[in-house]
């Protein structure tokens, strides 16, 4: 974990309300692993007061550059969208515990901006010659980030939109379910996206029974593990249920241990 100042190399709008930042910061770029995030200070004043967490979406240690993929949702992300090339950005990171290797083939399931950590994961897995399918769901085509700029050619991309404007018509989870029913089975699923998507994956996995990891979000203050603010209920070994920290033990957890999804999925 480093407290450092990154420089904005490049800012690009990539979809409706969605932009990327390429940040020059060698220490973060060379130490981050897929699923980890950075905690970014957006104002030197008190508004907004707290930092904001964003997943690392790509890293190039040789260049000393890492990238963020950000959706503008509120005051903080709006401020960040206004940042100019060459400006400094106060970053704390890399933080958290990322994805853990499983069994190939890997199916990555992204809902909307949840694509961010999975893009980094897809790049890393591809470098290790692991077979990857990337399921990418959005509400409509306008929200879609052109992933071909991020994904290696060997990664097979499966598109889904809820309004049918691109690819499979319906939820990304339904696209995955269709494939699994047809016998296209992963050894490991890694997912990040809205709560409803993760909940549906947990429900479907009662039938699939495939090892699955989720990258979770929770409101954060310190993002280092010091404040216990980002607690999520996790069923640990021996049936113990404890609050773990999304910023420290997470953000990636084994799906079946996330009590919230598990309980509601099986009820």
């Amino acid at each position, binding site marked *: 974990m*480093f*407290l450092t100042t990154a420089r904005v190399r490049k800012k690009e709008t990539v979809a409706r309300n969605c932009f990327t930042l390429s940040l020059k910061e060698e220490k973060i770029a060379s130490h981050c692993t897929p699923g980890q995030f950075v905690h970014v200070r957006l104002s030197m004043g008190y508004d907004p*007061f707290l930092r904001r967490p964003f997943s690392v979406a790509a890293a190039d240690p040789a260049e000393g550059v890492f990238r963020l993929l950000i959706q503008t949702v509120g005051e903080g992300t709006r401020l960040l969208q206004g940042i100019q090339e060459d400006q400094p950005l106060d970053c704390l990171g890399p933080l958290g515990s990322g994805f853990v290797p499983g069994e190939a083939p890997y199916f990555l399931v992204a809902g909307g901006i949840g694509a961010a950590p999975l893009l980094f994961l897809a790049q890393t897995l591809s470098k290790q010659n692991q077979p990857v399918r990337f399921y990418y769901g959005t509400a409509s085509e306008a929200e879609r980030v052109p992933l071909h700029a991020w994904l290696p050619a060997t990664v097979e991309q499966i598109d889904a939109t809820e309004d049918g404007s691109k690819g499979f018509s319906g939820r990304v989870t339904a696209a995955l379910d269709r494939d699994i029913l047809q016998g296209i089975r992963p050894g490991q699923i890694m997912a990040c996206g809205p709560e409803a998507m993760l909940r549906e994956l947990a429900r479907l996995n009662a039938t699939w029974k495939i090892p699955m990891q989720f990258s979770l979000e*929770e409101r954060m203050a310190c*993002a*280092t593990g010091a*404040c*216990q*603010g980002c607690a999520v209920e996790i069923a640990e070994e021996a049936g113990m249920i404890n*609050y773990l920290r999304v910023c420290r033990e997470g953000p990636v957890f084994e799906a079946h241990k996330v009590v919230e999804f598990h309980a509601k999925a099986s009820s």
Partner: protein
Amino acid sequence: MQKLQVELGSLVLKNPFMAASGTFGFGEEYANIMDLQALGALVVKGLTLKPQKGNKPPRVVETPAGMLNAIGLQNPGLDSFLARELPRLNQQEIPVIVNINGAEESDFVTLARELQDVPGILALELNVSCPNVKEGGMAFGTSPAVLSSLVEKVKRVCGIPLIVKLSPNVTDIGEMARAAERSGADILSLINTIKGMVIDTHTARPLLGNLTGGLSGPAIRPVAVRMVYEVFQATGLPLIGMGGVMSLQDALEFFMAGASAVAVGAGNFVAPDTIPRLIADLQSYLERKGMNSPAVLTGLAHGSR
């Protein structure tokens, strides 16, 4: 080099800046970013006899110039603290103050008895002001009689400096300070968080899992400074001031209001290098002003009383 050492009665700190309880965990988290030995003191997360699970999430929410938290004193409990956390802190020679909590008087007394002769603990801070737990917590810090009885009992078993952390959620904080002083407190620290609430307008429900939380950060600083000022007049005890400190300017307000030391809480989350920066800035401030000790600043705002 100016000497930054301060003395709060028999508690001697190498500089007047401490990490406030609950905002620095047990030190481990920030070890990569700063030299923890440089801290005046590290006040560890609120400790209870038995492990505490903590409150239902969400536990934190941002507010204007601050935040609400409702952690609910999640901590590993006394045994685990002694077996795992304290040895590591001692090995790194970090000056430790333990913040103790309980649902009943006997919990505080047991904790104080068990901890007071453990090597490597500088002082105990009695947390009678946590707004986020159902039992105990703030209830001990809002009635002078209840506070007196508790402080007296803890003091009887505690051979190291006893700090009583006051709640701002009272009408007259001077009265609480006097009650603590009469009953044997050695030092007072203030303020703990101010009870507050945020409503999620989408769900039309309070946002925090605990419904209410404690407000901290720059938003509470003027309240905290006023209370330090009042308590300085109400008692003769050394004071540790806190509430929204992020810069030397903020810290100076607390010193001048009457504090001998200053703690940083939520500021650590925003700028994890706040405390090392305060130490360096105070150093050059004292040099510039030709002052020979931070103690010179304490209570300046009261003029020649």
